[in-house]
C-alpha cells in the first residue's frame, strides 16, 4: 500500500467511524484517538474492513497498515489524501 485513499481526512474519518460504529453497534461515538482493540474492534474485523475499504474507495488497502496505525486518527493521518503523516514506511514495505 503506497498510496493515499482518494478522500480527505474528514471523509475518511467519518467513514471509519460509521463503519466501526455499525459493526460494533456502539451506543456512543467511536473514539477516534483510541486504539481499535481498546473498544473491541479486533484484527479479523480490521482485515475485513480493509476489504470493504478497497470496494468503497477503489484502491488497494494493506491491512497491515491498520495494525501499524492502530487508531482511526493515526490511519487517517497516514492515508487520507490530505493527511500529514508519512507513508514512507508503508512504501518500503511494498
Amino acid at each position, binding site marked *: 500500500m503506497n498510496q493515499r485513499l482518494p478522500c480527505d481526512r474528514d471523509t475518511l474519518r467519518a467513514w471509519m467511524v460509521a463503519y466501526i460504529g455499525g459493526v460494533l453497534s456502539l451506543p456512543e461515538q467511536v473514539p477516534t484517538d483510541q486504539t481499535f482493540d481498546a473498544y473491541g474492534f479486533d484484527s479479523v*474485523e480490521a482485515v475485513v474492513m480493509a*476489504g470493504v475499504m478497497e470496494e468503497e474507495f477503489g484502491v488497494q488497502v494493506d491491512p497491515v497498515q491498520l495494525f501499524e496505525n492502530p487508531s482511526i486518527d493515526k490511519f487517517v493521518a497516514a492515508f487520507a489524501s490530505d493527511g500529514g503523516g508519512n507513508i514512507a514506511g508503508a512504501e518500503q514495505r511494498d
Partner: protein
Amino acid sequence: MTQPAVSIVLVSYNMRRELPRTLLSLCPPYQTDIARADIEIILMDNGSDQPPTLADVAHLNADIRIVQQAQPSVSPVSAINHGLSLARAPLIGVWIDGARLASPGLIAACRLAATLHPRPVVATLNYQLGPTLQFESVRHGYDRQAEDHLLHTIDWPQAGYRLFDVATSELRGGPEGPMLESNALFLPRPLWDELSGYDPAFVEPGGGVVNPDTYLRACALPDVQQIRIVGEGTFHQIHGGVSTSTPESAMAVLQTGSRLYRQRRGRPLATMRDPGWLYDAQSRSVIQSPIGARA
C-alpha cells in the same frame, strides 16, 4: 436401512495424512455417547489425486459413504451441497474442512443441544493445533512433523480431550466473543433447505468466505436460536490450506473474501457478536442464555 440421527457432510481434498485422523475422531468409540447406528458420514472427495477408498475406512465403526464429486472445483460449495442432498438424518453437520479433528463428545453435544430449540443453529468452536494460530506457528518451525509429535505427546486419540491442551482458540474473545465462522455447523434438515445450502456464488479457492456467509445466513433465519457448544471443538491439522499457511495468505483470503462478500451481499462482512446460548457439553446445560431459557 434405519435412519441415522446425525449426518455429517465432510469435504476432503488431498488430505491423505489428515483425513484418517479426522474420520477416526468422528466415529465411535472415540465419539462417546453415540452409537454407530446414530451417525452417517458422507465423505465428499473434491478431486483428490489419491481419493480415499472404502478399504481405507473399513476399520472404522461408522456408516461412511465416500462420494467422488463429479466435477471437482477449487471451491467446496458444490461438494457440500451434493453431500447435503444425500444426507438422511434430521440433523446435519457440515464439516467444511476435512483436516479438523473433533473432540470426543462433540457429536453427542450437538445432538443434545439441537433438541433445546425448535429451530436450532448449533455452532461448534474452532481451534488450531499448536502453540499459536498456525499461520504464526509455521514461522517458528511448526509443521506436519511437529504436529504429529504433538499429538503423540498427548496420547491422542486415547486422550481426546487433551487436544485442548495443545491447541489455540480461534476466538480471541472466548466462546461468547465475536465469531466469524464455525467449521462444523449443525442444522436440522429444514433449515438447510431454507438456506438452500451453501451459496454457489462463492466459486473462489476454498470458497472464500462462504463458511462465514453460511453461518451468518443461518443465524439470520427467522425464529432461530444460535447455540454455541462449549467444552467441545474442532481442531485444525496443518495441511497447507490457504487460510492457515502464512499471515499474508490468511489476511489475503479474508480481505478478498470481504470485498467479494460486499459485492454479493451489498453489506460488509461482520462477525456474529451475539453469542446466542452457550451450551456446556460437560454439564449438558445452557450456561448463558436469555432469562428463563436455561435447560
